[in-house]
């Protein structure tokens, strides 16, 4: 079964090359992935991310429930509209999915989850919900557009319905405004400023056209992948899954171990791993030689294999190859990667590689088992 988003015909009309992404027919690019990438780093681009799963939880027990379900603490969401990035863990602290949770009001929350994990996520959430007074509703009536880049907010505001313009421009990072069926959030997955907009399917084509009319360029999944890699943001299924924990996935910052009294699924396993201390880390790799790093290539230090690349690409901003690797590093930043029959020179770096259009990576000088 393949699904199309409400904007499928718009993509085809814009010259998209369409691919099947976990059962969804989505644009991989509209001509050149590199041009789309640079467009987002310097101007503004739109991504149709309507394949993502959107779930609303309603009821007096919602906050309590999410406080148990999620590794980050929803009590941090003090006012309506606030957003939090986190992960949903199993009992062994393996990552079931990563997601954004929005507070709509005191008793209503919205989760935006991955598309590829939709079924298992819903099964897991419903299992945990048993006996709780929380109502789960999945949205299949909305379009989800990410508009990203240094000019994204200013340009998007010109295309938004008038009653949303001012409140959208006033949003602080990681907050959102909801009006009727529209939600505008100052969030994203590219390392640039911008918005993510949820809106009714029936209004999607008109809004898409309005965004193109103010000079925002359509961008595909290809550019989304190179942008998120430069930004040091994980892709579920490539960089993390149920076999690894947040500590091993560079997302320890999305876990709240304080307050100690809050019990959440996976907490005991995480604490045990942290105490034990010896586990691999997800780090950045910058290739110093020519070539392109790819998932599956082995990483070495002083002749010893220390781990493997989990995502790799060519960085259009840095004009060299970058990757994420899960490694037990031992000392400095120098390492080698086996690419076919050659050993290439690379450096371990602290993520991200790029933020707001600028290279920001730092070489790892000392890597301990713990951070």
């Amino acid at each position, binding site marked *: 079964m393949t699904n199309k988003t409400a904007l499928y015909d718009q993509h085809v009309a814009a010259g998209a090359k369409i691919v099947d992404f976990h059962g969804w027919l989505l644009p*991989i*690019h509209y001509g*050149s*992935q*590199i041009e789309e990438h640079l467009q987002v780093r310097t101007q503004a681009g739109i991504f149709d991310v309507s394949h993502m799963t959107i779930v609303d939880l309603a009821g007096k027990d919602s906050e309590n429930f999410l406080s148990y379900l999620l590794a980050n603490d929803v009590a941090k969401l003090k006012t309506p509209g606030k957003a939090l990035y986190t992960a949903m863990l199993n009992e062994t602290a393996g990552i079931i999915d990563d997601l954004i949770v929005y507070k709509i009001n005191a008793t209503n929350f919205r989760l935006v989850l991955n598309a590829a994990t939709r079924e298992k996520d819903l099964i897991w959430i419903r299992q945990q919900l048993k006996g709780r007074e929380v109502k789960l509703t999945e949205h299949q009536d909305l379009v989800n557009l990410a508009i990203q880049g240094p000019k994204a907010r200013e340009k998007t505001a010109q295309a938004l319905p008038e009653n949303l313009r001012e409140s959208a421009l006033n949003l602080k990072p990681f907050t959102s405004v909801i009006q009727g069926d529209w939600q505008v959030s100052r969030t994203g997955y590219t390392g640039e400023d911008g918005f993510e907009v949820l809106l009714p399917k029936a209004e999607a084509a008109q809004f898409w056209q309005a965004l193109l009319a103010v000079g925002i360029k359509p961008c595909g999944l*290809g550019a989304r992948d*190179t942008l998120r890699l430069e930004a040091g943001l994980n892709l579920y299924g490539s960089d993390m899954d149920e076999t690894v924990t947040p500590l091993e996935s560079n997302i320890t910052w999305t876990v709240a171990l304080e307050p100690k009294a809050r019990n959440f699924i996976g907490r005991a396993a995480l604490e045990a791993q942290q105490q034990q201390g010896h586990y691999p880390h997800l780090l950045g790799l910058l290739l110093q030689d*020519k*070539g*392109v790093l*790819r998932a599956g290539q082995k990483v070495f230090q002083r002749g010893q294999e220390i781990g493997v690349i989990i995502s790799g*690409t*060519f960085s*259009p901003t840095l004009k060299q*190859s970058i990757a994420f690797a899960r490694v037990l590093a031992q000392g400095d930043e120098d390492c080698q990667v086996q690419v*076919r029959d050659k050993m290439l020179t690379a450096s371990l770096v602290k993520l991200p590689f790029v933020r707001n259009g600028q290279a920001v990576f730092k070489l790892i000088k000392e890597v301990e088992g713990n951070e």
Partner: protein
Amino acid sequence: MSNIPEELVYTESHEWVRKESDGSITVGVTDHAQSMLGDLVFVDLPEEELEVSRDEECCVLESVKAAADVYAPVSGVIVEVNHELDSTPEVINKEPYDAGWLFRMIPSDEKEFEDLLDAEAYQECVKAEAH
């Protein structure tokens, strides 16, 4: 629809071959191949004077998306590689049949040419792949 020049011959693995007047051949990848790969960012070219057998991997193209092997269309010796591609691999996307050529070789067995495809046969091969 991709561009398939009449005057060239092709392989099923998407290389094109041009016979030059001095007996050498020039090899590149087709418009269809570059379009499937997307933006090219690196070419691992073969060494000059390398002896290759037909269908042997002798060059690697890396795009933002994936790596792809290029195979020797016939047996022979590589006599020249296109070093312009070291700094401008994107030329393969723009001009796959001209400035985007990969290498030149002296074939060792003329008979192997009989197995290469003409433009029409290659067109059929691309069509069959789409289904």
